[in-house]
């Protein structure tokens, strides 16, 4: 299937290697809980007033099923899909923050620093000019004070991984062809992931 050798070869591993287990519902504070859009926006406004632009980091984790790459998504409340990730603490680096979030959302040891996760390159960045929910892959002209910047990273999965998922969320493996251009269901960022991944050649590893 891959006809030309490419420097960007990415290994995806078969799905059945991953074991998904539930874990106890973790105590939610304002910053890692589940929001409605309205409450999220008001929280964002307060945070912007206090700390300036919010930087979020999100992870693209891929597995192979039926010879097609699948994206791991967290589903909240049966309707909202998210990439694993979240907001950086002030002064925190992108990579450290993403590892911390992955540990919290997907690892056995939720207080760990996430050092077992291997964060790869940045695939894309999305800018939010204002507190409403539209994002753009560039800083629009005339926008001097963007409110949020979201960076999406490719994260490599080790050969065998056990995922522990909070009970109020589901971890799904969604084929790229289903996510592609499906703004309505998955939102701008997730539905744009296949296009950000297109330059990689996937080396599907048989188990």
């Amino acid at each position, binding site marked *: *299937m891959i*006809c*030309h050798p*490419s420097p*960007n070869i990415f290994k995806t591993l078969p799905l059945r290697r991953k074991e998904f287990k539930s874990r106890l519902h973790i105590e939610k504070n304002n910053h890692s809980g589940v929001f409605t859009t309205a409450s999220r926006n008001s929280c964002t406004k307060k945070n912007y007033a206090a700390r300036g632009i919010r930087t979020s980091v999100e992870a693209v984790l891929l597995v192979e099923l*039926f*010879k*097609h*790459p699948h994206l791991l998504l967290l589903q909240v409340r049966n309707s909202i899909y998210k990439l694993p990730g979240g907001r950086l603490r002030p002064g925190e680096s992108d990579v450290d923050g993403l590892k911390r979030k992955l540990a919290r959302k997907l690892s056995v040891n939720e207080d760990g620093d996430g050092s077992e996760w291997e964060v790869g*390159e*940045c*695939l*894309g*960045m*999305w800018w939010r000019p204002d507190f409403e929910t539209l994002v*753009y*892959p*560039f800083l*629009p*002209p*005339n926008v001097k004070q963007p409110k949020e910047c979201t*960076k999406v990273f490719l994260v490599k999965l080790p050969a065998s991984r056990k995922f522990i998922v909070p009970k109020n969320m589901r971890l799904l493996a969604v*084929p*790229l*062809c289903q996510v*592609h251009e499906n703004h309505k269901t998955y939102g701008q960022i997730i539905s*744009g992931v*296949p*296009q*950000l*991944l*297109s*330059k990689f050649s996937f080396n599907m590893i048989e188990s």
Partner: protein
Amino acid sequence: MVSSQVVNTYPLSSYTFGTKEPKMEKDTSVADRLARMKVNYMKEGMRTSVEGILLVQEHNHPHILLLQIGNTFCKLPGGRLKPGENEIEGLKRKLTSKLGANSPALVPDWQVLLLFRFTDTGESLLIFAFCVYPHNVLLHIILGKLQIGECVAIWWRPNFETIMYPYCPPHITKPKECKKLFLVHLSEREYFAVPKNLKLLAVPLFELYDNVQRYGPVISTIPQQLSRFQFKMITN
């Protein structure tokens, strides 16, 4: 190949544009093009094409150079690789063929460039810009000096149809075309010679984003694929 997260973009006024003899498209219709693709596929197998993303900056916003054929159809400079040809060398060959000035005695003349400007009220305003040069300027263009950067996107054509995807769809074992888009790093001064039957446009990223109707799925997703780069907007 240059791999860098920082992309230097220079103002449009940094560049000189002239015209050269027309370079006609090989096919007069989409149906002809697909038919020719079929013939080539039988002879040579999957078609690999390479296209270049050339960036300039205007008003601190990156713009992509597109070639316009006729009144509406826009494409990136590039084309099909010869069998066995290296991607980078092939792209340089195509860029020189489409945009290089090959005659040293070329006389630059009027060239209309369409620019969009984002006004304070948020509207997209179409303005025109003209470039005029003195006669008898001797141009020696070596577009081989262009630095081809990294590949930012790959699109697959599963069948002899116009639809392309940013992944090889499941169950497709024999795609008909693979198209690769490369970032092209321009230096501060370049001379472009645009075939008389084409227009060269500098289109801002905000105009391309999500604009599938006007620019098609490949070009309209370039802004996302460039979003991870840091653009250094250099002014004169």
